[in-house]
């Protein structure tokens, strides 16, 4: 019967193995950070895991933050409904007409009181390229009743101006060449962002 001591002595690798060459030791420059004592600090692998975890947490926090921010921003955009109106306009003042300044110009037009179509008559609106580089317009599609109202109003107004108002501001005063039906395009010197804001805003009922 062998004792533990004898078993261990038999199995002791130092009895069978050649001692290692001391030159096997190579000092490493990339020392791990740790505390300044001889208490055990986490080994490299565990520390790497902590670093990777921390990085993941930061990325996750960033993504969540970005998501929240985008919700916030899109909420702002959603709330910024744009009131859309189309009215007939005249170049000269007359009875029952109200003067209105055209945005971004010195011109004024004289508006009829009657609103032809408004937000409720719009099916969709999308941003379209405008007249020049980095200029954008908004294309508006009317629903059946909206298209009918537009046609009825514009038929008798050929050769004269129509006014498109956003939030009560006249932004465009196209001269009618033909009756307008199912769609109208608001061109203006909008930036893409403005055009998007309008397109998103006017489809809100």
């Amino acid at each position, binding site marked *: *019967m*062998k*004792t*533990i*001591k004898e*078993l*261990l*002595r*038999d*199995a*002791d*690798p*130092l009895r069978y*193995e050649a*001692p*290692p060459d*001391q030159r*096997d*030791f*190579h*000092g*490493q420059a990339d*020392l*791990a950070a*740790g505390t*300044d*004592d*001889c*208490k*055990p*600090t*986490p*080994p490299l*692998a*565990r520390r790497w895991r902590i670093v990777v975890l921390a990085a993941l947490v930061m990325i996750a926090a960033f993504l969540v933050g970005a998501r929240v921010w985008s919700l916030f921003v899109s909420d702002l955009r959603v709330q910024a409904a744009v009131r859309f109106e189309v009215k007939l306009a005249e170049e000269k003042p007359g009875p029952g007409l109200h003067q209105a300044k055209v945005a971004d110009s010195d011109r004024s037009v004289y508006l009829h009181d009657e609103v032809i179509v408004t937000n409720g008559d719009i099916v969709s609106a999308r941003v379209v390229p405008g007249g020049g580089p980095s200029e954008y317009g908004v294309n508006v599609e009317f629903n059946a009743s909206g298209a009918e109202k537009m046609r009825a109003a514009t038929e008798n107004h050929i050769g004269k101006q129509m006014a498109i108002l956003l939030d009560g501001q006249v932004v465009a005063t196209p001269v009618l060449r033909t009756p307008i039906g199912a769609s109208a395009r608001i061109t203006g010197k909008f930036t893409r962002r403005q055009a998007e804001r309008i397109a998103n805003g006017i489809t809100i009922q």
Partner: protein
Amino acid sequence: MDAQYVRASPAVAANNPVDRLASLFDLHYDRLYRLARRLTPNADDALDLIQETFLKAARFPRSIPIGAREEEAWLVRVLINIRRDQWRKSSVRDRHDKSQAKGSQLAIGSANPEATLIARTAVWKALDILPPRRRAIIVMHELEGLAIPAIASLLGITAITVRWHLSRGRHDLTHALKAYMGDAQ
């Protein structure tokens, strides 16, 4: 910080940290290797362990006490602590399964030299069930022939604790190595 310390401590003032580390290395490498090899399953792990120990010494030169005995004690404790960290990383279940599997496989052979080698390896593997500090105490006592008070002062613990670790370690090893103790009769 380091520079300030060197100036403040006359005993170290003569040596710069690099010289200090080199002398530590020359003086204690063999002793540390003997311990490290007996705490690890293979020579590579032992070399890694020593490397980590000296890396720690290189990082914290001012926490190493002066004097050969004190240096040795510091290095031995750091080495055991590093080993403990490594040991904790691998799960207990892994160790248990491994030692069980080896045990049953190894009880078969008896007379031929290959079986002896395998049995020897298995006995060494069985040491892995011991937590590193207990293993170090067993190793120092049974293989290095250190007396209990010497171990106690080296590790900075009481003789009673050393004795307790010894008896627990022997108990666990007796369980794990029952097959070999009978087999070698």
